[in-house]
């Protein structure tokens, strides 16, 4: 595929991530921290986030599957997820976590399960889109092009 086309796809992918609220300004902060001495910073942090969050989502699934749900434990996991999603700018995941914590406070297992479902969906959505973004980035670089700066 032509570099120009790849670059256009990249710009559109990035724009839609922000437009749809999947990412917020904190992601831009991550991008600003990337430079020649740390050229892979964004990919590294985002990968760390997805590894960490997948583990947390598994822990949450197990915790909510118990006959006597330990809501303190569930809340602790959600707190972690909220923190890291906020730090990478995964806005919709973070917002789901806020709702989730309310359900934990009310000790409402059913509502918590719904929140978990929602978070998993949002998580998958942003993960897939970011993966597409990173792949486009790689393809652009491989084709000798420059990564467009998206404000």
């Amino acid at each position, binding site marked *: 595929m032509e570099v120009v086309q790849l670059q256009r796809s990249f710009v559109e992918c990035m724009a839609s991530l922000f437009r749809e609220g999947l990412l917020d300004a904190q992601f831009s902060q991550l991008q600003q*921290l990337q430079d020649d001495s740390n050229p892979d910073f964004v990919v590294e942090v985002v990968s760390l*986030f997805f590894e960490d969050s997948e583990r947390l989502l598994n822990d949450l699934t197990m915790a909510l599957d118990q006959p006597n749900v330990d809501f303190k434990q569930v809340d602790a996991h959600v707190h972690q997820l909220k923190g890291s999603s906020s730090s990478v700018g995964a806005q919709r995941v973070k917002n789901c976590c806020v709702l989730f914590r309310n359900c934990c406070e009310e000790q409402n297992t059913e509502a918590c399960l719904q929140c978990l479902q929602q978070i998993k969906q949002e998580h998958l959505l942003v993960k897939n889109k970011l993966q597409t973004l990173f792949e486009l980035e790689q393809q652009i670089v491989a084709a000798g092009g420059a990564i467009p700066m998206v404000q």
Partner: protein
Amino acid sequence: MDFYSSSSTNSRGIGEPCPADEPHVLAVDDNLVDRKLVERLLKKSSCKVTTAENGLRALEYLGLGSDQKHSTTGNGSKVNMIITDYCMPGMTGYELLKKIKESSILKDVPVVIMSSENIPTRIDQCMEEGAQMFMLKPLKHSDVKSLRCQLMQ
């Protein structure tokens, strides 16, 4: 906001004055992603960074661990600032702050508390205990830059 004003003679613990070019910061956070972020933010502001994943590890590094007899065996004298998350399992950032302020060797090392939650009573509690600053997460480059400037003074 309480500014920590330091005089050059007694504010840095044993030994070295704060090297204006590369202060050494100990960053404490139980969250892996946040640790990576704070480390990068500090390095981008020309700080040397050591990270710890909880209060106990931080105290051990500083030489204040429960099994360490003398504080001088730790790295406390090399650290120019400690930045810690508030919510951590085991020992909170507040408890860590207290332990540091109780240490004759480390009490003058500035301690910054970070939190994702904006709770005034929490903030007051930390400032009263002697925290240099309380910062809201997620941290931004501008936050760390201003912190860095404070360290230079």
